[in-house]
């Protein structure tokens, strides 16, 4: 068990290092960072002076050594957009808001998808099943931003029940969380449904049915536990996808001041250092979630072989 955990964490670290290398190469080697720092009309001397000041005139390997050293000290560089502020400081301020949104959205998604998938699986092909499958299919066909904007038009513009955008109390959280959750609900419902149908058709469920076990017990105790592994995989995947991009879209629609919105702002302000810090932090989060999910597998299903 512990060797497995250590190995998974090690693999995760490799991914984080790879992400750091990619971010470094993208921002330093494939483009000239000075382009982003100085206005377009800057003279050649100004460029060279600034290059020397930031250390971009040194060989790329030396720069990378410095970069890694800075990162390991927790120094992610200074923002160009808000001079004097470290980028990690900005991320530290916006990250909790993103995490709040992802937590609310994913809790909502799982809380809706589990019962929906189970109800659909009770009678495959039945009326209820068809309704749920059709709505799920429509839900997962809609782009995330469109779901968000529709919610916004209906509940904020037309009915005026909820605030249009921004960060505030609970009422500000409802619409963004729903927008993040709904497409995920579609995908998760389909998976819960097909996993449950597979389990309900298996031999051991028939046997326990024949023995007279109540349906409720078969559903919750037998079938759901075994379907759980697939559901867990997909939920983990949804969380990483939300962290790694979908929040950016939802945050843009609702002007939710999480790190996704700041990533877009960083692009507008040509602040590559802030942008690369955000991407790096997101990579670390995604890897962490993946590692946790892999370890959870083992806890839920001891039959899974450790490799």
């Amino acid at each position: 068990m512990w060797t497995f955990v250590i190995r998974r964490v090690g693999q995760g670290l490799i991914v984080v290092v790879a992400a750091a290398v990619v971010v470094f190469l993208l921002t330093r080697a494939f483009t000239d960072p000075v382009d982003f720092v100085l206005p377009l009309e800057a003279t050649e001397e100004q460029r060279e002076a600034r290059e020397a000041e930031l250390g971009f005139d040194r060989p790329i390997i030396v720069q990378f050594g410095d970069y890694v050293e800075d990162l390991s000290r927790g120094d992610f560089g200074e923002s160009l957009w808000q001079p004097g502020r470290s980028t990690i400081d900005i991320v530290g301020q916006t990250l909790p808001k993103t995490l709040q949104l992802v937590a609310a959205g994913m809790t909502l998604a799982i809380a809706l998808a589990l019962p929906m998938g189970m109800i659909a699986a009770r009678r495959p092909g039945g009326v209820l099943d068809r309704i749920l499958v059709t709505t799920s299919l429509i839900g997962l066909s809609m782009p995330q931003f469109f779901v968000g904007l529709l919610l916004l038009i209906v509940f904020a513009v037309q009915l005026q029940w909820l605030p249009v955008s921004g960060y505030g109390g609970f009422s500000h959280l409802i619409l963004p969380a729903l927008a993040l959750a709904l497409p995920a609900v579609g995908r998760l419902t389909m998976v819960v449904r097909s996993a449950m149908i597979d389990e309900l058709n298996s031999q051991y469920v028939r046997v326990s049915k024949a023995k007279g076990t109540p349906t409720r017990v078969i559903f919750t105790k037998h079938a759901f536990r075994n379907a759980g592994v697939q559901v867990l995989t997909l939920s983990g995947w949804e969380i990483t996808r939300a962290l790694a991009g979908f929040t950016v879209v939802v945050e843009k629609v609702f002007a939710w001041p999480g790190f996704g919105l700041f990533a877009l702002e960083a692009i507008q302000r040509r602040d590559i250092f802030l942008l690369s810090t955000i991407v790096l932090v997101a990579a670390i989060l995604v890897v962490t979630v993946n590692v946790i999910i892999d370890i959870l597998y083992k806890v839920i299903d001891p039959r899974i072989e450790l490799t």
Partner: protein
Amino acid sequence: MTLGRNDEGVDLHDVNSLSGDEQTLAGISRHGRTRTAKAKELLVELWHDRAGFIGVCFLSMLVITAVFAPLVAPHNPRQQDLVNRLQPPVWSDGGDWSFPLGTDGLGRDVLSRLIFGSRVSIFVGLAVLAIAGLVGVILGVLAGYRGGFTDRFIMRLVDTQVAFPGLLIAILLAAMIGPSVRTVVIVLSINGWMIYARMARGVVLSVKETDYVEAAEIIGCKPNRVMWRHIFPNLAAPLTTLAVLEFARIVLAEAALSFLGVGVKRTDLSWGLDVASGQEQIFNSWWLVVMPGVLISLTVLSVSLVASWLRVVADPQEREKKYGATQIRRHIKDNG
């Protein structure tokens, strides 16, 4: 994905009892050897899968209007007409037929913009499919067939990249090289090849041990010939289904990138861009957001419907289950 694996469970029973008669089945499959007959059979099957049929119809319509956009579109999509700005669609108060889906804040015709915008979506979808599919399949077949170090190296690369925060890296990359259609294609290809590699490797691993591949190796076929002549054709069916599903994902991703302003150029015509610019007028002109949004959703929905039909058609066992019964019934009717 195992969605809908049991969808056919309902009438599975009577198909199984019917197909028990091996002779009848052999008789049927000997029919339809010719190409036209096969195509006809496929069309009949498509007609019976209503959802798939609707999906194919919608997509064909989309492709046709995209190809003939200058002829079909009622207006020039870039032509501004400030007198007629923010016209509502024809069915709401104040709308009229000269602008069926209304106009935007600069008086540009929404319908024409959507028709031209479909070109970007389709082009990006096909280009990314071609690039990511080619790279992924080649690397996956190599990994599966060579095994050993090549396999470990390629699969480690796949695993590492799958664990990456995809859309964020895409945003970073797009911000670096600047928005354009080419950028979107590059970014989405880099993000999308891994799934083909995994699929191709899986198929190769299962086919590698079969007798005919071993026979080919024994008579001295070179590895390249074995890989591409003997193993590669097995990929056709799963690859088609995967490619169709991926197309839906790419259309969504392109729209999302363009919506965020890191996709195509501001001056290009794209559904995602239209939604983004419509958001500024969301308080009084809902149609600017809803029209492109609905169109994207319909496109993605049609593609998924076609994919689920293809999955059944491409898998001989599934196909037998679903269409065997109708074929047998027709056979009995025709031959008395």
